[in-house]
């Protein structure tokens, strides 16, 4: 799988008349991991929310060559976009297995197969399918949130601050999982302020400041 999986062109987002993202263009190839580095409030979350369709924006977003700018969030997901939000937002009252199953858009058999796949990627989750999501630790919740995204078999992953609040060892295993997804052909766009976490996995780094791209890509590890 090659080619541009996600292409963001001239994207702008405004909140109450003030620009949160201004004229940002990014493209991510299939199998590539791109990292949006920026401080808290630089506009990473706004950008990712605009791409998934939860924040209104101008400019265009295309997915595997299809323009999805006019699509609803639900349709964008169905076309192959997955979003792992900041703070995980797993469904606390659903069990681990239910959190995963609910995110699948496939039929029953395929759903079960995908579930096993997530469990094999995250053995920590495999052991407790019937526990409620609120009982999990932060790291496990992050894995669950990523696993939930995997269930929909997306071609592009959007991750917002996946390392936030994670112990180093846990962050490491999350990073390894992301690498596996990329090597499987998925395009990954990560919004992150912790450069240390993404250093090992980023193919491309984009610096975001005050809603705009500031430095050329492929310049890694700036924030530390």
């Amino acid at each position, binding site marked *: 799988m090659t080619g541009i999986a996600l292409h963001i062109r001239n994207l702008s987002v405004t909140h109450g008349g003030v620009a*949160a993202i201004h004229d940002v263009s990014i493209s991510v190839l299939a199998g590539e991991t791109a990292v949006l580095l920026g401080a808290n*409030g*630089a506009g990473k979350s706004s950008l990712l929310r605009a791409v998934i369709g939860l924040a209104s924006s101008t400019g265009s977003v295309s997915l595997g060559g299809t323009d999805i700018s006019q699509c609803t969030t639900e349709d964008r997901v169905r076309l192959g976009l997955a979003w792992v939000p900041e703070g995980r937002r797993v469904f606390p009252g659903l069990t681990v297995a239910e959190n995963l199953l609910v995110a699948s858009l496939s039929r029953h058999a395929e759903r079960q197969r995908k579930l096993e796949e997530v469990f094999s990627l995250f053995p920590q989750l495999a052991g407790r399918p019937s526990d409620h999501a609120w009982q999990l630790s932060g790291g496990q919740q992050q894995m669950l949130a990523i696993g939930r995204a995997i269930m929909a078999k997306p071609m592009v992953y959007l991750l917002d601050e996946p390392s936030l609040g994670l112990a180093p060892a846990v962050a490491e295993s999350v990073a390894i999982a992301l690498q596996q997804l990329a090597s499987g052909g998925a395009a990954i766009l990560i919004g992150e302020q912790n450069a*240390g*976490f993404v250093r090992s996995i980023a193919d491309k780094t984009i610096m975001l400041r*005050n809603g705009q791209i500031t430095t050329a890509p492929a310049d890694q590890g700036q924030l530390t």
Partner: protein
Amino acid sequence: MNARTSMSVAGGAALTIYALFFASSYDQRILTLSGIYVILVLGYQFIFGHAGALSLAQGAFFGVGAYTTGILGSKFGADFLLTFPLSIVVAATLAALVSLPVLRLKTHYFALATLALSQLLLLVAINWEPVTGGANGLPGVPPVTILDWKLTRGLPLLTFVWAIVGMAMVIAHMQMRAGRVAAFTVMRETPLAAPSFGIDSGMLRLRAFLLSAAFGGAAGALFVHTNRVVSPETLGFGVMITCLTMTVVGGRFGILGAVIGALLLTHLPEWFRGFDEYYLVAVGILLLAAVVFAPEGIVALIAPAKAPHENDKPSLHTQSKRASATKPSRLALEAIDLAKSYGGVRALDGVTLSFGPGEIVGVIGPNGAGKTTLANVLTGLTPVDQGTIRLGGRDITNTPAHIIARMGLARTFQTPQLPNALTVRDLVETTQRAHGMSPAADEALDLLTIRSIADARCDTLPHGLRRQVEIARAIATNPGILVLDEPAAGLSPDEQDEIAAICISLSASGMAILLIDHNIEFLSPCVSRLICMEAGRVIADGASDETLTNPDVRNAYFGVISS
């Protein structure tokens, strides 16, 4: 004169001409009833609109007023000058009695408690036949009688009722002068943070509840004089639903909304009489359309307002110079052995720290270390399980947050707590008023060089400016202690430098500052001391370099970044 005012004047004049010259006795009666409902809705706006609490007791206060007048009038022929004030007092007293257990309840739990109260009163009215006349009610309530002057129905009663409506409007207007509207807005939109602004939410809610009861009682009393009979219907859920509907359809704030809602809903069924047995279906359809097309009230549709409290056009100040900080009171904060658990998790576990005038103390620590809990506990928003906090030598442990704030401890929040509907100036001045100061926002705004946005609504501000507004709001009361929770998060390096410089200048004038952040680059240049927390404990407390080189700190805090 703005659009809304001129529209009100024109509408009022048209209505007066109609009432005086064109209205039949029947029209006059409907207008009289409308006026009574205006009073009821004006009262309901206090608790439901301004305080934002879904009270289902407004009908009960109406009924209590009605029965007070009804019983005294029909059994003793008592004078209006006695029964009317008494109806108000009895309703307000009832509100005061139930306020203690009921007002602390939230959202629908508050609604249910007020509903249960109303239903209990209804049961009493129906079943206490000797006094209330039971289900039949009491006939023979005299007309409004003042000394020997009996008010006849028709135009005299209409004029009298609307004169009282006018008085009610004046009282509502005086009660809801700009400053207090803003305080209510802060309480409603940022309920958790409001106490830290010095706002006594409990008192505000109580005031709103008592006012709503008093207005309800007055409306009930007039209603009984208009019908000359008091019956359990006045206490029934129907009155409450009517009142709620009028308020939502008309508008939750402001006199015009109350008038529109009351006039429309009393006239609507009368207009549709021609539909015979389907007339209420027609009323329902129009009501549905009204809510769907004007979900914020018709008043918002015909005269859109920026906020419940209107402002003139923002005046464009030029970027002003930074003012020098005035001298704050000199205070020291001391915390001894604080502990706080949330359902088994020890968020604070024996924290002891102190700092005093002129000091800037930084607090760092990984996520979940208890930094924000510390800020909440020190400022009184969260009660401690154990430990002592002293402010300027006085024990303030578990003192209400608004009192602590007024003693000179100000703070900002990790996520700026700005009420959407207020302008920056209103927010700052509301805080100053809550501290008993005369409102003067400019100085604090100048200090942050944000005077140019003084008249912008908070919800239009970008992130960086929101932080600056928070800080301006906090220092506008000249606090002795300032607690800043992640003031630099999300700011550009330039903006961060700006904040640091402000902190330094404030501390130079004697303010004690606790700076919670995890950005070392931001903290290092300005703090005199650095505290590091982990898992609810202080693991280091000393000069910046000392703390930063502490092996425990490196392990706990820099583990992630340097991995």
